[in-house]
């Protein structure tokens, strides 16, 4: 895992540097600042850009480990503070969406299997097709229009109260719910077909125990792996949803910084997202190993 995170630091640092645009000149051009040799040199000196690349990387990495992502070009304030405080908003939004996804798709998915509803299957199949094709930001506007403007139930925009978070979280979750209903349903049905379920039935084990201990537990590893990927997707999706609902999260900050070519922010952002992503995947592996003893043999690569 540490190796993977180190990889992430390499990506976040060098990705920006590989782009054939001089960050400082671009920064000046974008922000209509007078381009003078001294001004450019000053920024370079300030950001340490006149040192060798590897040295810069080492320095940046040392600081990043201490949660110091350097200074913003634009505001001259430390990036880390700004980034982390906004990140907590985004993380909250993604987490809310995450639990909505699990709760709704879990209930419908399990219910459809236990009650053997062919109807649910056809319905979710159509829903997967439909939601996969709808841009989430559009869906957000449609929901705002119907729920907030027409019905007047929930607040229009903003962030901070529970009511304000319902629509964004639901919008963000909606794209994933049909997918998870299907995932849960098909993998449960697959699990039920396994011979050890027949043997459990032959022993007269209660149906509730069969579903809980054998079927649900059996689909957990596949579910965890998918959910880890979804966490990353939700964080990315949150950036868009924030723009729709005017939420002061990291997504908006990122877009603003991009417009200003504030690359210290970009670096810090990729580093955080990448690290989180690696951690999610690691957690998923860990949970799989707890559930499935056969996966434990492969453990030990930290």
């Amino acid at each position, binding site marked *: 895992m540490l190796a993977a995170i180190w990889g992430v630091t390499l990506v976040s640092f060098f990705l920006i540097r590989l782009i054939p645009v001089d960050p400082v000149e671009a920064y000046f051009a974008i922000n209509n600042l007078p381009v003078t040799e001294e001004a450019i040199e000053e920024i370079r000196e300030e950001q340490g850009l006149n040192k060798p690349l590897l040295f810069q990387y080492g320095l940046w990495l040392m600081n990043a480990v201490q949660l110091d992502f350097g200074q913003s070009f634009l505001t001259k304030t430390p990036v880390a503070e700004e980034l982390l405080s906004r990140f907590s908003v985004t993380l909250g939004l993604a987490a809310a969406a995450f639990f909505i996804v699990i709760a709704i798709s879990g209930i419908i998915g399990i219910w459809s299997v236990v009650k053997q509803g062919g109807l649910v299957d056809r319905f979710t199949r159509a829903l997967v097709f439909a939601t996969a094709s709808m841009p989430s930001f559009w869906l957000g506007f449609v929901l705002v229009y119907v729920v907030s403007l027409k019905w007047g139930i929930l607040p229009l925009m903003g962030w901070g109260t529970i009511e304000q978070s319902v629509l964004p979280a639901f919008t963000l979750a909606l794209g994933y719910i049909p997918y998870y209903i299907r995932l849960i349903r098909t993998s449960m049905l697959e699990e039920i077909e396994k011979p*050890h379920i*027949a043997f459990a039935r*032959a022993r007269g084990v209660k*149906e509730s125990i069969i579903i809980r*201990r054998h079927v649900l537990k*059996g689909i957990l590893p596949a579910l965890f792996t998918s959910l880890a990927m979804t966490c990353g997707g939700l964080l990315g999706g949150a950036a868009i949803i924030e723009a729709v609902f005017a939420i002061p999260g990291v997504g908006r900050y990122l877009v603003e910084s991009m417009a200003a070519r504030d690359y210290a922010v970009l670096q810090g952002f990729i580093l955080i997202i990448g690290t989180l992503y690696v951690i999610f995947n690691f957690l998923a592996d860990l949970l799989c190993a707890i*559930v499935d003893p056969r996966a434990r043999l492969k453990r030990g690569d930290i």
Partner: protein
Amino acid sequence: MLEIRDLSVFIQTDNSEKEVVSHVNFTVPQGKIVGIVGESGSGKSMLCNAIMQLFRQNRRYTGDIIYKGTSLLAKSEREMRHLRGKEISLIMQNPMAMFNPIVKIGDHFVETLQSHERISKHHARKRAAEQLARFQLPEDELLDRYPHELSGGMLQRIMIALAACMQPNLLIADEPTTALDTMTQMDILDELLHFHQKTKTSMLIVSHDLGVIAKMADFIAVMRRGVVVEYGPAEWVLAQPAHSYTQALLAARDEHGDLEKLADSWEGTTIGPLYEYKPGCWVREEG
């Protein structure tokens, strides 16, 4: 105690139906062992599943299965669940696939016990340990082990212990020794015989191996393509087989021939009517 009356089993698929067991009649008397021998695909396992009433949703039955005077076919799924594992137990083939790989051995026992009686997890574990000890299995080690850590032979013995843990009246063993090495096969059979002698539990043993059936059974039914061709006391069927298919089976055993090859090449008929040629001995008429 168990009576199969003119039973036919049909497997239903989306748009067709296939008869896998056809008009089978026999009984399992109290305290006796009945063996069914036949090649793979002869409908033996289907018969076991029919008695257990497993896979009900895509099976259709005609005839009847009478257990202790009542029809199993007429029972609801709920009533059947209470019978399964408690009154009628099933030992299945391929033990490696029958234990849930992510559930400990001990929990397999606990859930079985808890499904049939009110018992705390602690007591259920104790009962499981006793049960394993009764079958000369090292109980302390096994309870917290996962199935993949154990050998096929070990799992098969645990399966017997598990099937027997509610003291069933009828134990059905579907190919209990298949996929095991010869030494382990003998151990398993001795285990089953020992259990039978101690408890007098009625048994129905199904195998493609005539040797297994000959060693165990009091009565033998010979099956071929879903049909019983001969049924009678073991000593009669083995000593004086009346049907030519049974004769061919016995000959193949004596010559260590390949049963599957025989099953494919044997070309006699099995459609004649079943008649009792001697009290308790039934055979299909051959044209």
